[in-house]
């Protein structure tokens, strides 16, 4: 359990010496409980208390790193069950699984395609995080050939997948100097796998089909000195995965239950078919997975999954803003219309999407409304005639268009008078209130 202020107070010297800057030890304890100060501010606390407090202040979900040559895929350090309560911090790593029953050539071709995959979403380049090599033949040499084939193509982190310590040992030797993720430790092999993980400084996945099984293995491995664990409930079923992931994360966050205070892994790769695999991966993104393994490289599915991951892991307190500027949609020419909107991401994407979908060319003038939507920004004084006029000048709209006509959102129709004064010589048109009506407006009113 995370300690309460009163519990912390009992561990402090209780002298009210004020050396920490607070009037009483109790006040300091309360601040500690709220994680607003560091224990080091108290010069008098004894070592036993320090150890106890340090353990209690460990993050409820341990941060795990999977590393290779400049890449570092991290998961963990989450603090909430629902993103609106604060935010989700570490996006789950998305890995593509290959198996050792394929030839090195086939693997190389597949990995080359997948490693080259890149899509751009709101200015960010989305790619796969790494690869998982699964032993299915039982032949260690085939396993290492495939690992070497992956390494010939890409330096991204690798997950070694086998229940056999000999396979894992061979793989770890091949990836010497990296910190791959080992999948994994089960009830039979955990001791040997634990030794390997410790020797190579690699994180180890714990595999069991129940919370009891996971807890038991995690505790045994912890006792053995293996600190970096990942939990993999053995299920490829949406309902069971949702239940187990929810229970594990709740135990970690609400009960500070240490044995389950680790990131989780979802093996979407083992789903019955590719469509189900995509849904299982989507669920894993929203519901607490730290590592997701896909079995099929389908760009048309990886793309929406990576976008969903961006969306779910967006900090709700800091909405994505779009850079203010003059955006070109459908290759506009000098006589095409200028539409104005704000730089709130949803507003921008709604408008840009509608204009794009209409097939009609237009200039989209995105003003700096501090990331607020049209109505909110207008109410807050961040989207007014002055700001629109400023954007028109700042982004050189007059130099780009021959027809001095600008369309403002219907919600701010009352700005048109003022805007005419701010922009002499410009024709101010009032557009629709909702983005969805823009195509019709452009076709019927502006044409």
């Amino acid at each position, binding site marked *: 359990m995370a300690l309460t202020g009163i519990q912390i107070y009992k561990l402090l010297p209780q002298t009210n010496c004020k050396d920490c800057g607070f009037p009483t030890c109790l006040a300091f304890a309360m601040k500690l409980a709220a994680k607003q100060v560091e224990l080091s501010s108290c010069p008098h606390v004894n070592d036993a208390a320090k150890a106890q407090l340090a353990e209690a202040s460990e993050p409820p979900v341990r941060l795990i790193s999977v590393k290779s040559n400049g890449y570092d895929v991290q998961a963990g350090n989450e603090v909430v069950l*629902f*993103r*609106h309560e604060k935010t989700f911090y570490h996006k789950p790593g998305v890995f593509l699984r290959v198996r050792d029953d394929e030839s090195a050539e086939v693997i190389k071709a597949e990995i080359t395609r997948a490693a080259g*995959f*890149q*899509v751009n*979403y709101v200015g960010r380049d989305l790619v796969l995080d790494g690869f998982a090599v699964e032993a299915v033949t039982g032949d260690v040499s085939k396993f290492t050939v495939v690992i070497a084939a992956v390494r010939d193509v890409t330096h991204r982190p690798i997950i070694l997948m086998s229940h056999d310590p000999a396979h894992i040992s061979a793989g770890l030797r091949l990836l010497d100097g990296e910190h791959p993720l080992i999948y994994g430790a089960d009830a039979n092999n955990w001791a040997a796998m634990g030794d390997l993980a410790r020797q190579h400084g690699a994180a180890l996945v714990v595999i069991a089909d*129940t*919370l*009891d*099984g996971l*807890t038991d293995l995690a505790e045994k491995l912890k006792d053995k000195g293996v600190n970096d664990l990942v939990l993999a409930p053995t299920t490829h*079923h*949406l*309902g*069971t995965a*949702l*239940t*187990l992931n*929810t*229970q594990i994360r*709740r*135990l970690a966050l*609400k*009960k500070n*239950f240490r044995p*389950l205070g680790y990131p989780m892994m979802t093996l979407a790769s083992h789903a019955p078919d590719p*469509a*189900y695999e*995509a*849904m299982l991966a*989507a*669920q894993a993104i*929203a*519901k607490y997975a730290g590592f997701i393994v896909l079995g099929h490289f*389908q*760009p*048309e*599915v*990886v*793309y*929406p*999954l990576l*976008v*969903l991951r*961006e*969306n*779910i892991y*967006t900090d*709700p307190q800091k909405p994505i803003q779009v850079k203010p500027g003059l955006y070109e949609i459908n290759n506009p020419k000098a006589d095409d219309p200028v539409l104005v909107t704000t730089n709130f*991401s*949803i507003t921008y*994407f*709604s408008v840009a*999407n*509608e204009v*794009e*979908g209409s097939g009609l060319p237009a200039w989209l003038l995105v003003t700096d409304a501090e990331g607020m939507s049209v109505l909110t920004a207008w109410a807050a004084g961040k989207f007014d005639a002055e700001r629109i006029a400023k954007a028109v000048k700042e982004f050189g709209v007059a130099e780009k268009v021959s027809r001095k006509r600008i369309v403002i959102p219907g919600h701010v129709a009352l700005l048109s008078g003022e805007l005419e004064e701010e922009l002499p010589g410009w024709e101010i048109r009032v557009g629709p209130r909702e983005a*969805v009506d823009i*195509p019709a407006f452009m076709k019927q009113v502006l044409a």
Partner: protein
Amino acid sequence: MTVEIPKETWAGSVRTVTFGATASEGGTRTRSLTVGGQKTLPFLHFEHETPHPPLVAIEIKDHRPDDWSPLLLEAWGEAANDPVNWAKAAEAVGADVLVLALSLNGVDGQPTTPEAAVAATQAVLKASGLPLMVFGPGQPEIDNVLLVAVAEATKGERLVLGICEDKNYRTIVATAMANGHLITARSPMDVNLAKQLNILIKDMGLPLDRILMDPTTGALGYGIEYGYSVMERLRLAALQGDAMTQMPMVVTPGFEAWKTKEAKVGQDVPAAWGDWRERGIAWETLTAVTLIESGADIVVLRHPESVARLHQAIQSLMALPELA
């Protein structure tokens, strides 16, 4: 050791709402459907059973739409030419519910008349026994005219009329009350606005078991995170006992997903976007799956293939996990 599973106990629950009336209930539907009744977050059966699974609705139009993705028109083929065949085709692919979305204009380019709206609705009711939702074109004044005519002509069918927004809820709620229908109340991705609209509708006297709410969602990549969190917050509020957030939720991932460029457009897009057809279906189904996990009780879809995938997901989520 045995780990004690942490369970939440909630004071509130989602309201149970039944729509579609059978012959014995004064309508012509083959069956009625019930949503809601949850006493915990979606699919957490270890805390409480989920009495009713989420439903998959298919959106059809009164005539072939000219602004839909070619992929959708190709998938429905000839059936999309008229609402009768479209309704039958939607039922054949396994839709639980039909949504008839009326167009602003008829095929002749003239505004849709109340008579045409009624004719289309009655034709759909005749073609399929599935419970039906009827949405206006989305312009308050026109919605009012068309939906009142539809509501009066279908008295007793327990249709769901939509979409009520703060601007036009009065007329639609009044006609729903007078004709034994239900309504869906849409608010723009905001917990308080959703509550406020529900309160206004309740204050008109419509019984709470005849209100669905649509907190609005965005598609994947286009604001789904806002819709997702608003739905989670509404559902948490409902479970905490806030009566004005306890309406079952209906959302339209089909409409949202299929207007994105990723789903709608197949040409002049980056090669990394992959296969167009599968991308479109994935965009819709992954949006919808994410939303049923944040509390959606009805998802309105557009592609026939998505129906089967959502049903597969729902069946899996409704199954009691085998936990040793």
